[in-house]
Each structure stands twice: as structure tokens, then as C-alpha cells.
């Protein structure tokens, strides 16, 4: 495992840099030499068909999985192979494809639990801010199990806001939610990116991708097959082939 001391943080480095990362599960190559970096305040969309390696890439970046090859750097610090909790403390926050709320806790406690390893003194103020931004103050005393699917997505988003992340990874954060909730999430992303937070967003909702992302990365069979703005990607033959099987 690399140590932080041997990889001093440098202001010239991007918040997140993934360098030639690979991951194999038995004979299957889930991620195959992917390189990707994102600047401060940038929103990068990661799209691709199911099974293309998007969520595995997130797990490699956030520490849920250890890469077989390549490096992951956060603000220049080599965090490759670090445990999830340590990477989280270094500055990555994430949501999950299926919301992973603490089901026996209220919304209030879910949010406060996200601040226990951060600035605890300001936790309640931050919670109020998150509740207001995500418009969930009215369910603050509800148990997580009493929430709708969309509200669960909001609370999970609120949890990542309770920390001081440099990079936020959102895994299908608007999938299956009401249009109003989708707008609330979009507004929150726009607000947070202005503070310099970098977003990596896995999405299937192309309207959202078009609206929010500065740049898109398209994955297929574990590799990046195209990269660029929405218009470039929409006209890319590799992308059409990945999604439709023909050009």
C-alpha cells in the first residue's frame, strides 16, 4: 500500500486522476486500462451500456475494489489500494446505485452520521443547510425506511454534502426519481460545483447528462471508447456501436 508521505499533495495536480487502471474478475476484464482525470469544479459524465465497467471504475476510485494495475490519485496523492475509509477521509464521497441509507436511523441521524469523521462541531449547521438545499426538512425525523425512493436518493446525496469532499461520485443519482426531485439534485450539483467540488456522474438519463456535464466519457467492455462534449459523443460512431451494436 502506498503511503501519503511518499506522495506529497501538490496544488498543480487535478482533484482526481485515474491512470491506466485495470480490474479482472476471474477471466472477465471489467476495467481495462482506463485513464481519466477531472479538474476542480468540473462535472464529468461516465456513460455506457450496462456491464461496461462504470460502477467498477467508481469502486476502484473510491476504494471498494483494489485495482490489478494502474494508479488512482487524489490531488496528487497516490491512494491506490487504500481502504475505503481512508480514501473517503482524503476527499472522495460517493452515492451508490441502490441507495445505501442507514435503515434504522432517521434522516437526521443519517446526515449526522456522515459528519462523524469530519467537522463535528458544525455538523448540525451543515445538516440544516443540506436539508434546505435538498428540500427534505419535512422528513427529518422520519426513518429511512419511511421515505420514497426519490427521497432516499436525496438523503444519500445530502450525506455526501455533510463532509468536505473534493470529489463526489454519483452513481445513477436521478434514476427512477420524480422530475421535481431530479431538478433538486441538478440544482444541488450546480451549486456545489461552484465551490470547486469535482463530480463524476454515472447516468443513463441523456437529458440530464446534456444539461449538467462539461465532458463525457463513454465506456464499453471495460474501455473508454469515446471522450468529449455531448455533441461530439452523440455523433461518435464508436458510441453508436457500443449502444446499438452498429454504426
Amino acid at each position: 500500500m502506498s503511503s501519503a508521505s511518499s506522495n506529497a499533495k501538490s496544488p498543480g495536480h487535478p482533484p482526481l486522476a485515474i491512470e491506466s487502471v485495470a480490474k479482472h474478475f476471474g477471466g472477465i476484464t471489467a476495467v481495462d486500462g482506463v485513464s481519466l482525470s477531472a479538474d476542480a469544479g468540473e462535472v464529468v459524465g461516465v456513460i455506457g451500456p450496462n456491464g461496461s465497467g462504470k460502477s467498477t471504475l467508481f469502486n476502484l476510485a473510491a476504494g471498494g475494489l483494489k485495482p490489478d494495475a494502474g494508479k488512482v490519485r487524489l490531488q496528487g496523492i497516490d491512494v491506490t489500494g487504500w481502504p475505503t475509509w481512508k480514501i473517503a477521509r482524503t476527499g472522495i464521497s460517493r452515492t451508490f446505485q441502490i441507495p445505501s441509507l442507514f435503515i434504522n436511523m432517521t434522516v437526521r441521524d443519517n446526515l449526522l452520521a456522515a459528519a462523524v469523521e469530519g467537522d463535528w462541531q458544525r455538523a448540525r449547521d451543515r445538516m440544516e443547510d443540506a436539508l434546505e438545499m435538498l428540500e427534505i426538512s419535512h422528513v427529518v425525523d422520519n426513518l429511512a425506511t419511511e421515505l420514497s425512493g426519490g427521497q432516499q436518493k436525496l438523503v444519500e446525496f445530502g450525506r455526501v454534502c455533510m463532509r468536505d469532499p473534493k470529489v463526489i461520485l454519483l452513481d445513477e443519482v436521478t434514476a427512477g426519481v420524480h422530475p421535481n426531485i431530479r431538478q433538486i439534485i441538478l440544482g444541488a450539483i450546480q451549486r456545489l460545483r461552484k465551490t470547486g467540488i469535482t463530480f463524476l456522474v454515472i447516468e443513463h438519463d441523456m437529458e440530464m447528462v446534456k444539461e449538467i456535464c462539461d465532458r463525457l466519457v463513454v465506456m464499453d467492455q471495460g474501455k473508454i471508447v469515446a471522450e468529449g462534449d455531448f455533441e461530439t459523443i452523440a455523433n461518435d460512431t464508436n458510441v453508436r456501436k457500443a449502444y446499438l451494436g452498429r454504426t
Partner: protein
Amino acid sequence: MASKPVQTPKFIVRALLIGAIVIALAVLPAFIDSYTLRIATGALMWAGLACAWNIVGGYAGYISFGHSAFFGIGAYTTAILMQSDFGASFFVTLLPAIILSIAVAVVIGGPTMRLRGAYFAIATWAFAEMLMQLVTVLDFTGGTAGLSLPAYLNEFFFYYTMLIAAAASFVGVWLLIEHSRFGFRIKALRDDEPAAESLGIRTNLVKVQSFALSAAITALFGSIYAYWTTYIDPHSVMGPQITDQMVVMVLLGGLGTIWGPALGGVLLWITNRYIWSTFGDTVIYLPILGVIIALVVLFLPNGLISLLVGRQRGKELISNILRKF
């Protein structure tokens, strides 16, 4: 920081209720005979033990079947140190008992708490069995014959010692788990370990800390129990029935709640003694207790405490009964 919430009448009622219970427990020995006092002392001990097991089983979500080992470590440490070779006084033995149990919990909990579910339960059960067999063959533990301790025949002393230990355990757990960052950490890892890690919570460390805290409280009661009964052997303080009762008491009272284990511990012990004194030294009390526990598990999955506190109260019980039939 947001201002503190105003103390509500509910808070005052709760504080008065707790105060009344403490006063009632403090003056109880003056109104009961020595036999009932022994039952009350046992009830306090089991309430404390259930509270200890609840830290790991209820709050962290790891079902341990090895807690009899820590009860035994406490009992044997006190018994050995009070033998004439060492001649330590009872209170002096408590600290080594607690330290030893924490050390063992860290060594055992480190690797086993990386397991989950049945695997963790089996690993802890195997550890407790191994330790019991070890104590059975060692000379300095007295082997199968066990050890006798200096007799101190003062039921009031043991009642108040158990009362102080139980009260300290509950207040400690209440402060540490219901009103601190540690409580958020431990409950978060119980509900969703990967999510807790993604928030920077070092779950492996929190698990071992909770196991050690639980072991320390269990060992404390083991120490007091040894001095109280004046004689211990491997089965009486390390047998699986110790853990089994702790588990059942917590499930009966309410898993992962602060007052559930106390309720379960006191009720089960008193019921146990009542049935035993009514039917004599037979095994008839076991099926009766079994039926009671089965009914609670079926109709009150959140334990008896859910009848007193919580969102559903009696409504939950009625709807559960109707759903079953």
C-alpha cells in the same frame, strides 16, 4: 451550531421515571427477604450482562456466541487473584479482570470481526468452547474441580455492588452509544458497512472497540458473580448457557435499544426463578420459557420494549397478531 432543543415535558417525565426507578432500587433491600434479595441481585446482574451483549449484538449487529468466555475471564481472574497465593482484595481484582478481557477481545475480535453472520457466531462460539476446555485442564484454574473464593456472606453488599455495576454500564452505554460520535459509527456499520466506510468510518476499528467494551462489562459482572457465589467451575462461568441467556434476554427485551436488554434481563430472570421455585428443580421451566420467547419473537419482533416506547406501541402488537392469523 444550532441551539440546544428545549427540554420537553416528555423529557421531564422520563427523567422522573428514571429517578423513581433508581430510588426504588436503592431502598428495595429494606422491604424484601434475603431469598428475594438474591433474585433481585441476579436480575441486576443479568440486566447488566444483556446490556453488555447488546453493544455487539444489538448496536454493531454482530451476533456473538462467545461472551461466556469473557464472563469466565472475569470470574477466574478474581478467583485466582483472591487465592491465598496472591491474597488480593475483591476490588483490586476488578481492574486486571477488565484489562485481560479487553486484551483477549482485541486479539480475538480483530480477525473474527472481519467475518459476518453465522461465520462470526461460529467463530466466537468455538473460541468460548476452546477457552472453557483450556480452563478445564489447567492447574492454576483448579481444573474440573474449580476454585473456591473467600466467603463474604453479605447479600446487601452484592446487591448494591451489582446495582452500581449495572447502573454504570447502562449510563456508560447510554452516553457512549446514544449521545456520542461513537454511537453513530457503530449504528452506521450495523446498518450498512460499505456505506459507513464510504463516509470515512473505520469500521474494523469500531467493531473491535465495541467488542472490547462489551467484553469489559461482561468480565466485570463475571468478577462480581465469582465473589458472590464463592465457588466457580468451568461450566458454571464459561458454559454456553451464559451466552444463550444473554442473547435471549436481549431479543426478548429489544435488540439495539437502550432499555430493552434491561427489561428482557429482569423479566426473564424473574420468570425463570418463579417457574423454578414453583415447579422445583425440574426442566419444566424450559419449555414454558421457550413458548414465551417464541410468542415474543412471533408477535413482537422488536422486543417487549416496543410496547412501551417507539412509534407503533400496542398497534404493532395487534397488527402482528392479526397478520399471523
